[in-house]
């Protein structure tokens, strides 16, 4: 087993361990930290298979923006309520059964695909990606800015309507 393979396995194991920790941790802050660990390990996986663009976006957007926002909200809402003290609802056993069934069903179809060694072509490097992205997909790129603007307006509208109901 080469060193690259070993590092890939290490990151996969870290992602799995973080996912299991997310189900076991009690406080939302620990769940958030476990999720950040999962995301960083996935970024490592992407980097190891050669998709550097996605690895960079994973760290910048997910860990840098989404999870920082999430951690901020957890600190803002540090209420003492039953959802902190009791981790699990009533659906514990059926959910675990469904989860194992899902893994079995999807895994059967995945093994049928057969596997080649996943290594990215050189076109996945930053420079060819950016040229292709801004050349062929510039309209989609501009449309995402419209989507983000709509999201900002919607977030402000949700907050405003809540204030009106309170008063």
């Amino acid at each position, binding site marked *: 087993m080469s060193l690259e393979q070993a590092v890939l396995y290490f990151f996969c194991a870290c*992602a799995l361990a973080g996912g299991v920790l997310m*189900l076991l941790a009690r406080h939302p802050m620990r769940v958030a930290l476990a999720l950040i660990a999962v995301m960083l390990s996935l970024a490592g996986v992407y980097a190891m298979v050669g998709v550097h663009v996605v690895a960079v976006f994973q760290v910048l957007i997910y860990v840098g923006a989404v999870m920082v926002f999430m951690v901020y909200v957890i600190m803002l809402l540090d209420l003492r309520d039953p*959802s902190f003290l009791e981790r*699990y609802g009533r659906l514990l056993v059926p959910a675990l059964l469904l989860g194992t069934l899902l893994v079995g069903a999807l*895994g059967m179809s995945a093994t049928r695909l057969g596997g*080649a060694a996943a290594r990215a072509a050189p076109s996945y490097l930053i420079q060819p*990606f950016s040229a292709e992205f801004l050349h062929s997909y510039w309209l989609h790129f501009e449309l995402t800015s419209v989507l*983000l603007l709509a999201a900002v307006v919607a977030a402000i509208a949700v907050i405003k309507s809540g204030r009106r109901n309170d008063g």
Partner: protein
Amino acid sequence: MADLQLLLWLSIVLFALGLVGVMIRRNALVLLMCMELMLNAVILALVTFSLKTATLSGTVLVFLIFVVAAAEIAIAIPIVLQLSRQRRSLDVAGYDSLKG
């Protein structure tokens, strides 16, 4: 085991963990985070398949999904904030009056 299989299995297991988390946890914020875990697993599957077909459009699609995920969390967090302000709780069992 080949890399492609390994990545697919990782994505399947992470997706199942996220689904189980959405079903069993009680805290609304933890539910949101488990949804993020499911989305991450799906993105991993997308990257794996785009490696298999060796096309660049998969990577572009991943970038667009990242933007959509950022927009989604920017809407979801204010909704959770409003819910917790009205019910004084983050427990999803207390939100049962939202049933249609």
